[in-house]
């Protein structure tokens, strides 16, 4: 057993074996290396978020974890409920019987009602129809879809479909949920309801591996984050630790007429770091007071003073340029 991850200061202190452990994963498509030497682990009860821009290798990493595409190098281990050490992809079926997966694209059956979707999906896990009939009402209730039990996915909103996908993924009572961008494309109400449900699942002891490019989602749900880009791990830690490590604690955004000149003006020295993005200057500092005093003398400028957040970290680590297909 590799103790590298549990010995890592970032990981929560625990003496249990990680549930899922990926070591030195490499994946190439032709000459294009999509994932390079990526290692991470998920401990029982933990929510690990993989964040990165489009094309960073998030979905490929998830697909390798699910045994859908074999890594070109590296090792994926999983500890079963009985404590057996399983490997992906050799034990793919045994591992998947303990997983719940919500993929980026809904794969619901359009011809089935909500409850039939759950029954049929449960049958793939070898669950009896009596068992499934017992489990389904609770799952629909959890997904706030009890009223829609007889409706087909075509009649559901985007948020409802995602929650049905989540309910379906819970049918085998999984230990680890694997969620690929679970709230992409949802409105704020639907996102908040999804987050609430995922937090409930964490409270009852489920583990979650999720990918996202919403920083508020990562901050809210994840115990630990993995920032990746171009298939490499850029940083790993709790959201707070990552911000403290990589970003000055305070940010002052300045915009308005003349703001752009500030980047070369003497005021620049009042901040640890400054950045010009479009028409806005970002000052990163440990003490914003003197900077703010000086900015107040130029009333034409508009300022926003705020604590540093994950988005600042994300943009610092992965850059601000727009990606292909973004």
């Amino acid at each position, binding site marked *: 057993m590799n103790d590298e991850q549990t010995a890592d200061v970032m990981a929560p202190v625990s003496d249990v074996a990680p549930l899922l452990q990926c070591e030195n994963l490499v994946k190439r498509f032709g000459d294009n290396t999509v994932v390079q030497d990526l290692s991470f682990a998920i401990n029982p009860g933990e929510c690990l978020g993989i964040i990165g821009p489009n094309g960073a290798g998030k979905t490929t990493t998830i697909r390798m974890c699910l045994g859908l595409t074999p890594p070109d190098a590296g090792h994926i281990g999983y500890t079963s409920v009985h404590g057996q050490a399983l490997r992906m992809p050799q034990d793919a079926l045994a591992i998947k019987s303990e997983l719940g997966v919500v993929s980026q694209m809904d794969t619901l059956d359009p011809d089935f009602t909500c409850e039939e979707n759950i029954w049929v999906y449960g049958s793939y896990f070898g669950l009896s129809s009596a068992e499934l009939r017992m489990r389904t009402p609770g799952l629909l*209730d959890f997904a706030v879809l009890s009223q829609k039990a007889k409706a087909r996915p075509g009649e559901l909103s985007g948020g409802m479909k995602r929650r049905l996908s989540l309910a379906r993924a819970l049918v085998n009572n999984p230990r680890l949920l694997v969620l690929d961008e679970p709230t992409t494309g949802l409105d704020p109400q639907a996102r908040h309801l999804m987050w609430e449900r995922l937090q409930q699942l964490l409270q009852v002891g489920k583990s979650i591996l999720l990918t996202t490019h919403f920083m508020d989602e990562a901050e809210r749900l994840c115990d630990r984050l993995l920032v990746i880009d171009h298939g490499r791990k850029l940083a790993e830690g709790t959201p707070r630790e990552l911000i403290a490590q990589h970003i000055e604690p305070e940010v002052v955004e300045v915009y308005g007429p003349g703001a752009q000149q500030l980047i070369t003006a003497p005021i620049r020295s009042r901040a640890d770091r400054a950045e010009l993005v479009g028409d806005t200057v970002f000052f990163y500092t440990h003490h914003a007071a003197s900077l703010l005093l000086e900015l107040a003398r130029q009333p034409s400028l508009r300022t926003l003073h705020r604590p540093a957040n994950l988005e600042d970290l994300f943009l610092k680590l992965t850059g601000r340029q727009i990606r292909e297909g973004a």
Partner: protein
Amino acid sequence: MTDTAQDTPPAESRKRYRRVWGDATQSPWRLPKLDGTFRPVFMRNFLVWRKLAIPSLVGNIAEPLIWLVAFGYGMGALVGSVTLNGTAVPYLLFLASGSICMSAMNAASFEALYSAFSRMHVQKTWDGIMNAPVSLDNVVLAEMLWAAFKSLFTSTAIMLVMLALNISTSTHLLLAWPVLLLTGITFSCLALIFNALAKGYDFFTYYFTLFLTPMMFLSGVFFPLTQLPPWVASIAEALPLANAVALVRPLFMDQWPADAWMHVLILLGYAVVGFWLALALTRKRFAM
């Protein structure tokens, strides 16, 4: 009650999964690994179909029956009878025995192309299934058997209509039934090869116009193979549909087919090689 899923024991206590040994980056040409997990996937297709069975049944048997009526009675009046191995066969019986094989072929091909492609590519049903403990090999097996089942259902319905029309009442028809199932299996396997290669529905038009339609005319459905130039006939004899017709037609005529095992083995050969090829190409498609 939000933690219902928590109250029940984990699923793995009731089901055991075997480890697949071998290299992590396995060849797509490795042998199929099939087991009973195809059953829920087959049942899934059955449950969807059950909702639409009656309208689809009408569509499935109406077309072949129109062919039969138009050609059988229309052409039959002109042709009268066809001489086959020295026996005169009424044209309607000749055509009926050939066209039921053609219907088995068409039903299997449609299901394993258009419907399977919808499930695989458009609806992403396969992706959903493979997030559960069901392997791609078994999903492909389920699709193959499902298309064969639908084909058998169609040919059974047509056979019942033929019985009602008193076209043939031979007890040998009971044996035509497993032959039609084999025909369905063979054409499902062949169609799944093209399903694995398809980028869109348009691709299937080629399969129908370049492969199935010529085969229909070269397999002795409408006229005996002896009408063809000898070199064409010898190629035609190797076609899967020709072998199906060679088995089914004598049974309709209350005779035993000659060289029955050879025809069965040829159909089985197409099925086995077709399935293996279809699976390898589908594995390649999904390994991306």
